[in-house]
């Protein structure tokens, strides 16, 4: 366990002390961690100098695990206990996982999220991902010989709410303080925008191992505005492997991929992946795999590969055109297209982009690393290490959010491509006379029918006073925060009686579930849960004291002497609680009291900030 830092009695640590903040690209096939060092973002290598960590976890006899390269190497012989591409199962039920029959796992279709039965018990994608995240966290802590203050974790832009929530849960399980979830293409744009100094309207084409995103961004002097985004969270390099593998099996007159044993299937897919990668550099390659004890040797050329996979590339083109339409721009308006993700090394993909946009795509940054690098830059800014005002991300929500209404129809409340954070309220009413409760069903997607959208959450609003049908006014408010996560509340306004409820999407884990997983011998769990939560409360208290003190230093003049004394007393109480209270709740209560007591101060500071921003504009205009 890393040691706690203790400053001299009565002295706060230097508020400008650098905080270790990392960016993590949690990918389908591999993951990376990056950080800003000496003003430059760089990916952190492991002790053997490798920056890429394969997203693979193997569960061993006796409760041990292999993570990364070792797990991947053992995949052929122990496919059932080696979970790869877990990102495909994030926040997903079994029925949502396309082609799960082709995967070598024993799936457990449990409520909430699909699990994989391993020799160490049933594991969800959240637990598998937490192992990967924890490994990267330890790598960063070893590199800096210090605690990680927080992390920015990237998700595909097209991830829905359940998938985002699951990612955040995994990070929490890995003991990471999530500064922000950001979208992968946006992270790539940050890296390109700052490193290459590009400005104007740019498309980011991000084809990873298991996900595809396309985002259209307007870049200008540190402002990264996402205009529109689209994609498919179940389309990636893995699918290219499967198409090629199927084509090869067919040509050899063998049974289909689905009919093979798990081990055979894994080997054919691995052979197909190697052929795919080789064909990015050469025109023809030989492939060898074993089925039913017979070794098959085949030659495959680039044309055969392109034909077998052309449908997939065409799908990505169709999704780009929809994004252009959403943004009301044409391909000629786009100044450049940035290629991200290992799968963009495929020549057919690059040619398709060059044809659509009429210019060669930008490939000057390493497509594997660029997302992690952008995340690291944003993490550094969020941790307060960079000069403020350097970087502003204005991202959007990828999918429309709405409610089920009569007849199983969707009423959209927040439209896709709305800039986040955003909130919108809509009023609904009762259907029957005397109706005292209302079922609220929250869905996400673009289709008209509820059955064709993703169900995110259901809750009931009770205690509506009996009235004739149509008289009640129930205001449902949707809010999407800066992480792209949704919360929904409902209240009855008509009668003055208010009832409100806030829901978390069905796929999100409760705090108890996360605590339960930690207790179940999770790799990163510290032996003593109580000590861990006390420590977290103390760290949080310290953070709040520092934040309040720097706010007072900057804008203390906004407070009267009395107001100042009140805030000082609240700070003193937090400091005393963090020092003396042996249990987290007392510290949390003091922190919450400080938060409430400084609400007015925060509002006044914001006011000053807004007016300065407007005044700055007026000065610039003159």
């Amino acid at each position, binding site marked *: 366990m890393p040691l706690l830092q203790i400053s001299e009695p009565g002295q706060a640590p230097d508020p400008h002390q650098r905080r270790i903040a990392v960016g993590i690209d949690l990918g389908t096939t591999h993951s990376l961690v990056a950080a800003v060092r000496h003003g430059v973002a760089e990916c952190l290598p492991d002790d053997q100098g490798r920056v890429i960590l394969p997203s693979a976890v193997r569960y061993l006899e006796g409760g041990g695990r292999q993570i990364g390269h070792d797990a991947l190497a053992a995949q052929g012989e122990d496919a059932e206990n080696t979970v790869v591409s877990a990102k495909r199962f994030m926040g997903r039920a079994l029925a949502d996982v396309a082609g799960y029959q082709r995967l070598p796992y024993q799936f457990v279709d449990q409520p909430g999220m699909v699990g994989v039965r391993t020799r160490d018990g049933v594991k969800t994608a959240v637990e598998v991902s937490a192992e990967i995240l924890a490994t990267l966290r330890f790598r960063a802590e070893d590199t800096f010989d210090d605690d990680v203050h927080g992390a920015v974790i990237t998700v595909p832009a097209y991830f829905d709410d359940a998938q985002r929530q699951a990612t955040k849960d995994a990070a929490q399980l890995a003991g990471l303080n999530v500064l922000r979830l950001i979208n992968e293409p946006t992270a790539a744009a940050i890296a390109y925008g700052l490193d290459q100094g590009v400005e104007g309207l740019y498309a980011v084409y991000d084809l990873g191992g298991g996900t595809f995103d396309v985002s259209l961004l307007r870049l200008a002097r540190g402002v990264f505005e996402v205009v529109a985004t689209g994609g498919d969270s179940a389309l990636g390099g893995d699918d290219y492997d499967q198409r090629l593998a199927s084509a090869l099996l067919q040509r050899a007159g063998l049974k289909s991929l689905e009919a093979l044993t798990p081990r055979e299937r894994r080997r054919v897919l691995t052979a197909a992946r190697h052929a795919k990668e080789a064909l990015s550099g050469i025109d023809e390659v030989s492939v060898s795999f074993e089925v039913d004890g017979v070794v098959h040797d085949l030659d495959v050329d680039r044309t055969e590969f392109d034909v077998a996979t052309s449908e997939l590339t065409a799908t990505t083109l169709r999704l780009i055109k929809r994004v252009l339409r959403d943004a009301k721009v044409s391909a000629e308006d786009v100044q450049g297209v940035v290629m991200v993700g290992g799968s963009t090394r495929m020549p057919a993909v690059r040619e398709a982009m060059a044809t659509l946009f009429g210019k060669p795509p930008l490939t000057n940054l390493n497509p594997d690393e660029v997302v992690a690098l952008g995340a690291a830059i944003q993490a550094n800014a969020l*941790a307060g290490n960079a000069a403020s005002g350097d970087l502003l*991300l204005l991202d959007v929500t990828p999918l429309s959010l709405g409610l089920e209404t009569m007849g199983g129809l969707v009423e959209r409340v927040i439209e896709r491509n709305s800039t986040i954070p*955003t909130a919108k309220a809509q009023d609904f009413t009762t259907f029957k006379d005397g109706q005292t409760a209302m079922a609220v069903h929250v869905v996400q997607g673009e289709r008209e029918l509820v059955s064709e959208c993703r169900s995110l959450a259901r809750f009931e609003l009770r205690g509506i006073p009996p009235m004739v049908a149509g008289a009640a006014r129930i205001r449902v408010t949707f809010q999407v925060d800066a992480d792209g996560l949704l919360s929904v509340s409902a209240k009855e306004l008509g009668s003055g009686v208010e009832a409100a409820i806030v829901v978390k999407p069905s796929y999100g884990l409760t705090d108890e579930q996360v605590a339960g997983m930690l207790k179940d011998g999770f790799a990163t769990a510290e032996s003593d849960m109580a000590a861990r939560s006390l420590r977290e409360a103390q760290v949080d208290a310290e953070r709040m004291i520092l934040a309040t003190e720097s706010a007072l230093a900057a804008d203390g003049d906004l407070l009267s002497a009395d107001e100042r004394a009140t805030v000082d007393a609240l700070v003193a109480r937090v400091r005393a609680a963090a020092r003396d209270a042996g249990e987290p709740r007392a510290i949390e209560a003091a922190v919450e009291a400080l938060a409430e007591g*400084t*609400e007015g101060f925060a509002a*006044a500071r*914001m*006011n000053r900030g807004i007016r300065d921003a407007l005044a700055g504009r007026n000065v610039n205009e003159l």
Partner: protein
Amino acid sequence: MDAGLSLQHTDFELFGLPERFAIDLARLDATWKQLQGAAHPDRFATETAAAQRVAMQWAIRINEAYRRLKDPLARAAYLCSLHGADLEAESNTAMPGAFLMQQMEWRDALSEATSLDAVDALSDEVAASRDATLKSLQAQIDGAASVDWRAVAGTVRGLMFVDKFMSDIDRRVDALQ
């Protein structure tokens, strides 16, 4: 503490823009980014929970105002509501006969269009009609000494039908591609 700007100010006040229909979009955009630069939650990631809550409220309010001011139809509807002219979008569906005829013709054309080119041509026609109506809306609001807000609300209601139809066209384009 000085009250200054509040979440309750109108969209126009918040963006320091004159309360009228015609708008300087470049200035709107620049102001939006300036305001978000001051208010976005990312700016307050290391601050107190209170500061983060306030930042979230402001960022949401700024985005709401920006979205409304940017879209001509939403902007016109907002001006109506500021002047007490309720759009009655749900209850008032009475539209002039010629307008309804036009709508029916368009809907027929859409259901008969089987090629992307045919849908595109229809889309262009509808967009041109929409632009013309927006021009007349600008004259109705900014050009008149005393604005007939009820008449403006009627024009806005008509445009809402047109916008709905345009999103149906977009869906058809999605289906055809």
